[in-house]
């Protein structure tokens, strides 16, 4: 469900009012745009009038046109005249209007795709319709569906066919069976009163068609190019007058014919006379002529279409042949040209001065380099890229090997004396060795193993040179002792080169031992803990 709000809406009446309004507006608009081109005289109006006044004729025409179109669209236009004549004949025989038969035929033709089969099926349908009491349209519908493979419609018509048999969909067998059952039903029906009435009605309709066609022709002739606008009322009145005359004349003739033979004869003569005056035969011939012309036109159209198609086919085939011929000729010409070019190239090679000179030069006694150059030049003239590349490389190598190598050798510097400057180098080495020797002479005595040494402020740096921590501690202690005015004693320290005095504790231990030894040897020392000093 859509909910909507109409922002703008318009009242729209339906039926005639709408048509009138729309037509008026359309015409008005067209006029406004300068496009009013005689709408009053349009073919539509003629058709509208014709439809109202000669309905039978136009119905028949329309059905015939539909049939023609169907046959044309399916490529069976050539079958139209025969089909139309056959349908008219069938109409006369069966008492069914041809404008009713044509749609049925068209439907069957669509289902079968064959005009003859469709005509036979239509005959059968009429027989079945008359025999079974079903409507012709129903039967035609069922048959056409049957041809399409759906036999349900036939089963629904209750034609006495076995359901299993219908299910096979064998239409050839089914139509044969129906023919057996209903053959002659139409003829039997037409023998009845109702059948005769129907035939008469149909004939009357045909008569109306002929009259209608005559009327149309007459009106067309009368109106010419002036249009029918003003003629409509007159024609309508004319129709009523003709009706009245016919009815009155018919009843008068009937009365007189039955009662007074002389008058009947007289009247017959009068009618014949009028017929002669009115040229009834001529009119009939004219109508026949029109029908013949229409048929001829159809034939001509069909023949023309066939001829056109044949002509087009022929032209197309000729075009294809021409194309093939041209292609073959082009291929041959290309091949010939290629051969000629090759021959010319060959001949040109023979008379090419440059090449001749190169070949002549190559015959002479020349160096390898020159030979390569000439060969390279020849390759360039022959546009042989790979050979030219190869030769140019080879020539470059050759040139390097000859010209450039000599140049390179000439540019080499003089060879140097490898012994030049040796004496200075040796002197310098000797001086360095002497210096090293001197240094080795001044090397401090290396202490080995455990050495008991007396450490004094003078000997401490050399003795403790390899024990920087011990040296730092000694300097710290001796410094403190110096600060507090204590003479720095000579310490007897056992220096273990393996590393006895490694840590502060080791050094303290050694100093403590030294102090103890000093005390024991009569050189006492006191430590003021509170003062933090030695005494």
């Amino acid at each position, binding site marked *: 469900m859509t909910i909507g709000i109409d922002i703008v809406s318009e009242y729209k009446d339906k039926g005639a009012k709408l048509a009138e309004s729309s037509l008026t*507006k359309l015409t008005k608009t067209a006029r406004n*745009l300068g496009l009013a081109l005689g709408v009053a005289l349009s073919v539509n109006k003629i058709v509208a009038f014709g439809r109202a006044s000669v309905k039978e004729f136009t119905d028949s025409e329309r059905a015939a046109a539909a049939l023609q179109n169907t046959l044309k669209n399916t490529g069976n236009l050539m079958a139209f005249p025969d089909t139309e004549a056959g349908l008219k004949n069938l109409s006369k025989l069966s008492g069914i209007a041809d404008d009713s038969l044509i749609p049925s035929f068209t439907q069957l033709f669509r289902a079968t795709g064959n005009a003859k089969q469709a005509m036979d099926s239509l005959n059968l349908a009429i027989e079945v319709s008359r025999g079974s009491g079903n409507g012709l349209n129903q039967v035609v519908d069922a048959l056409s569906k049957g041809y399409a493979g759906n036999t349900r419609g036939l089963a629904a018509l209750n034609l006495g066919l076995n359901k299993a048999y219908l299910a096979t969909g064998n239409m050839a067998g089914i139509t044969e069976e129906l023919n057996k059952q209903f053959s002659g039903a139409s003829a039997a029906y037409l023998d009845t009163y109702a059948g005769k009435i129907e035939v008469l009605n149909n004939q009357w309709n045909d008569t109306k068609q002929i009259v209608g066609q005559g009327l149309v022709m007459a009106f067309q002739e009368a109106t010419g190019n002036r249009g029918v606008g003003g003629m409509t009322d007159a024609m309508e009145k004319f129709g009523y007058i003709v009706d009245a005359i016919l009815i009155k004349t018919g009843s008068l003739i009937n009365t007189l014919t039955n009662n007074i033979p002389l008058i009947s004869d007289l009247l017959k003569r009068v009618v014949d006379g009028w017929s002669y005056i009115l040229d009834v035969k001529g009119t009939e011939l004219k109508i026949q002529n029109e029908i013949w012309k229409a048929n001829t036109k159809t034939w001509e159209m069909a023949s023309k279409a066939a001829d056109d198609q044949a002509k087009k086919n022929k032209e197309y085939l000729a075009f294809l042949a021409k194309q093939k011929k041209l292609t073959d000729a082009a291929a041959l010409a290309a091949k010939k040209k290629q051969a000629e070019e090759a021959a010319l190239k060959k001949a040109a090679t023979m008379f090419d001065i440059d090449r001749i000179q190169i070949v002549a030069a190559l015959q002479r006694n020349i160096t390898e380099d020159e030979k390569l150059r000439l060969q390279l030049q020849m390759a360039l003239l022959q546009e042989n890229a790979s050979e030219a590349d190869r030769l140019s490389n080879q020539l470059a190598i050759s040139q390097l090997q000859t010209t450039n190598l000599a140049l390179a050798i000439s540019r080499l510097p003089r060879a140097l004396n490898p012994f030049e400057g040796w004496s200075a180098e040796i002197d310098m080495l000797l001086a360095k060795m002497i210096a090293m020797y001197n240094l080795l002479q001044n090397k401090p005595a290396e202490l080995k193993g455990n050495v008991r040494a007396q450490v004094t402020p003078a000997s401490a740096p050399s003795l403790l040179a390899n024990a920087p921590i011990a040296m730092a501690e000694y300097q710290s202690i001796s410094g403190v002792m110096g600060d507090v005015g204590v003479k720095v004693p000579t310490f007897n320290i056992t220096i273990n080169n393996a590393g006895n005095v490694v840590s502060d504790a080791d050094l303290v231990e050694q100093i403590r031992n030294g102090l103890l030894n000093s005390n024991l040897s009569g050189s006492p020392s006191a430590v003021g803990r509170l003062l933090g000093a030695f005494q």
Partner: protein
Amino acid sequence: MPVQVKGLIETRKALKKFAPDLYEQMNKEIRVALKTITDDAKTKVQPSVRGLENWQDLGKPVVSRTKAKTMMAPNLRAFPKYNPLIIKKGLTYSVAQGKRNKAGFVGLYRLLNKSAVGAIIETAGRKNWGGDPQSQSNNPNAGAHFNQRIQGTYGGFKQVGNSRMDKGRLLFKSYVDDQGKVQDAVFAAIKKAEHLFETTTKNDRYGLAA
């Protein structure tokens, strides 16, 4: 309230036939005007309805529990779930001529709420606010509850025309809020196109006469 005019159908036909560029231009301007309403209506769509959370569309297929498909009605569908995206998608407009209604009027420019769930939001309770009085349901108050929850989220109806059915919560509300500006814009576009068409026609006529 929709405005009823005369001759617009013919004008549109004439424009379409004789000045298609003018016709397109006119429609373009009208579309812009109509879109303001639909855009506004889209902003009114809520992500969910308070109190009807189970109605929310969670993407599961919905199967009707009360109606079965039959030969006569093979396309019956379930009551739609609440999906704001679908509602927004359904809020649109049309510049095509609509079908003739019972009264003989044809809508020429229309605002539309096309989705089923959108129509529910628009109109729920419009006819029976307290639910269907002839309801045979075990829960006869369900209808009233449903309407109240929607009303609670979306607010009340707004009336466009005189009929009690000419009211709604989304499109109708936006249309009323617009206060006829869109209508004016539509008419302005039509007038402009007509004027240009007349000018062109006159020029053509003079041109032909000359």
